[in-house]
């Protein structure tokens, strides 16, 4: 092994040679360099060989031809891989014991930050490398004549009826007004990472969450106003006692006269949840019908409805630009994150998806920030690779 002293000599010589190349050696330094050169033939040969213009030019080129990002990424990957092995194995137990002991010492918060800190830092690096961004106003409109229009990302809502198609700020959507469309049916769909507000022909306002779709006629005819929903939406239904408003979604029919409510009916979710904020709704399934009161949420699983009281603010937080989780299963939380940031989520261990967590954060934050908050509230860690978030 090379002793530290040897390095000190090497550093000193390099400073002297650099000074020589620069031409600003003091008399004293000059003498030192001379002495070193004359101490051995090897020294002198090396010196003469190194101090050639072409050689230095060449070596400086090599010196600068490094790929910083690539080396840094590799370093991070190695550190994270090792941290992962540790949380799985024996060390995980010791870490947990350490945490428990510190709680006794009233240091729990500090230590928790300490333990989660460095992986979180890497999370931000990983996220910016992956180019994952929060969702925004993204949607497209399909008309029954097959025409498909991509809605502007700089607008947040669209108003549709038989005679007019416009953004909620009044700007007309050219594609249709010019062609004199005679479409009778329309569908607004949001992709993963998209949200949009739709104003229906009767004035009902619907906010679509990510990866959702709403189909409706461009003119409501007949005794009821019927629309179809996939995914999640918040409704503010225009009052019209003569014409009940009906939302059909996965396995249920919600009938209202005029009220505010939220339906979560994603295909990938086991249950369909309908939450009432104001007024009254009737939910009909193959198994029968139930009435909801404000503040209640119905939960439909395999045709069975159960009703419970909930904090409605949490349910509609998404509409107000927030993630709000209260003792929610990590599986469900991660599906929301996946839809909004358009990422895939992988659980290293299925059990983790059953953990329940709480937390509040803006939906417009970087994904790394959202994950960091979750890391701080629960005993979990995340890793981002490309568009995949791994929970471990």
């Amino acid at each position: 092994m090379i002793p530290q002293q040897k390095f000190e000599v090497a550093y000193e010589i390099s400073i002297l040679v650099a000074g020589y190349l620069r031409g600003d050696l003091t008399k004293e330094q000059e003498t030192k360099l001379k002495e070193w050169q004359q101490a051995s033939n090897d020294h002198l040969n090396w010196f003469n060989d190194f101090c050639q213009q072409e050689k230095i030019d060449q070596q400086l080129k090599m010196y600068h031809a490094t790929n910083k990002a690539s080396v840094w990424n590799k370093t991070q990957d190695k550190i994270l891989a090792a941290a992962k092995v540790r949380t799985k194995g024996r060390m995980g137990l010791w870490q947990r014991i350490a945490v428990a002991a510190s709680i006794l010492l009233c240091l729990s918060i500090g230590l928790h930050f300490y333990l989660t800190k460095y992986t979180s830092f890497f999370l931000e690096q990983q996220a910016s490398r992956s180019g994952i961004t929060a969702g925004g106003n993204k949607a497209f409109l399909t008309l029954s004549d097959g025409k498909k229009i991509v809605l502007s990302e700089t607008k947040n809502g669209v108003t549709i009826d038989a005679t007019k198609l416009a953004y909620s700020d009044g700007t007309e959507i050219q594609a249709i007004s010019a062609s004199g469309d005679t479409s009778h049916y329309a569908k607004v769909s949001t992709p993963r990472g998209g949200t949009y507000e739709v104003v229906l022909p009767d004035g009902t306002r619907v906010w679509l969450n990510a990866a959702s779709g709403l189909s409706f006629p461009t003119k409501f005819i007949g005794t009821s106003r019927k629309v179809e929903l996939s995914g999640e939406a918040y409704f503010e239904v225009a009052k019209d006692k003569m014409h009940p408003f009906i939302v059909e979604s996965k396995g249920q029919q919600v009938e209202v006269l005029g009220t505010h409510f939220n339906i979560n009916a994603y295909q990938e979710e086991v249950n369909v949840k309908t939450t009432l904020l104001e007024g009254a709704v009737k939910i009909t399934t193959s198994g029968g019908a139930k009435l909801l009161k404000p503040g209640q949420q119905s939960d439909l699983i395999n045709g069975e409805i159960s009703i419970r009281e909930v904090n409605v603010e949490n349910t509609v937080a998404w509409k107000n630009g927030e993630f709000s989780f209260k003792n929610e299963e990590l599986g469900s939380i991660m599906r929301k994150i996946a839809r909004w940031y358009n990422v895939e989520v992988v659980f290293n261990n299925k059990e983790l998806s059953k953990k329940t967590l709480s937390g509040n954060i803006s939906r417009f934050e970087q994904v790394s920030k959202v994950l960091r908050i979750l890391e701080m509230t629960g005993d979990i860690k995340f890793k981002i690779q490309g568009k995949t978030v791994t929970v471990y």
Partner: protein
Amino acid sequence: MLLTETFDEQYWIIAFRKGNDHALSHFFELHYRSLCYFAGRLLQDDMEAEEVVSDCFYKLWERHQDFETAQNIKAFLYISCRNACLNHLKKTKRKTAIQQEYIKHLEEGEETIFYEVIETEILTILSQEIEGLPDKCREVFKLIYLENRKTDEIAAMLGLSVQTVRNHKTRAIELLKTSFLKKGVSAAMTLAFLLFIDR
């Protein structure tokens, strides 16, 4: 100046010992180029050099509590880099003549690595001088000197006039102290100029 440097060093080493990841990126920033160059020289393979260097930083981080001074960190990086390169070279089945020579030297004694360290350190000092130039000036200098770009090419790349590029070059030569760097850039320019005339 020196005092603040010492203070900064103290700050970073304490943070590093505590396992602060920003301190890791600080030391990475300081040493990654030297190590990549060092490993690249020994291995003659840039991809392998990246693997070896990232391994060294990983090992450094694993032992973050053990380091007392910034000098310890630097020495550790050099030594573990040298060892990793040697191990890698031994494992490589088909070796070039230079590599075989290196293995012999590396196994025999410390002298080879001693000169490698000196050379790397000198290049680090020269490189710091280049990095210390003002923004545009540095960019122009690097393109001329390190990438052998022609004046008009640089002008197009940076969206500047040819005259402005020339001005940056003149200023770089004024600001640089090391005559080797001054000569280097002048030579590169003259060469580019001659080639240009030749067409």
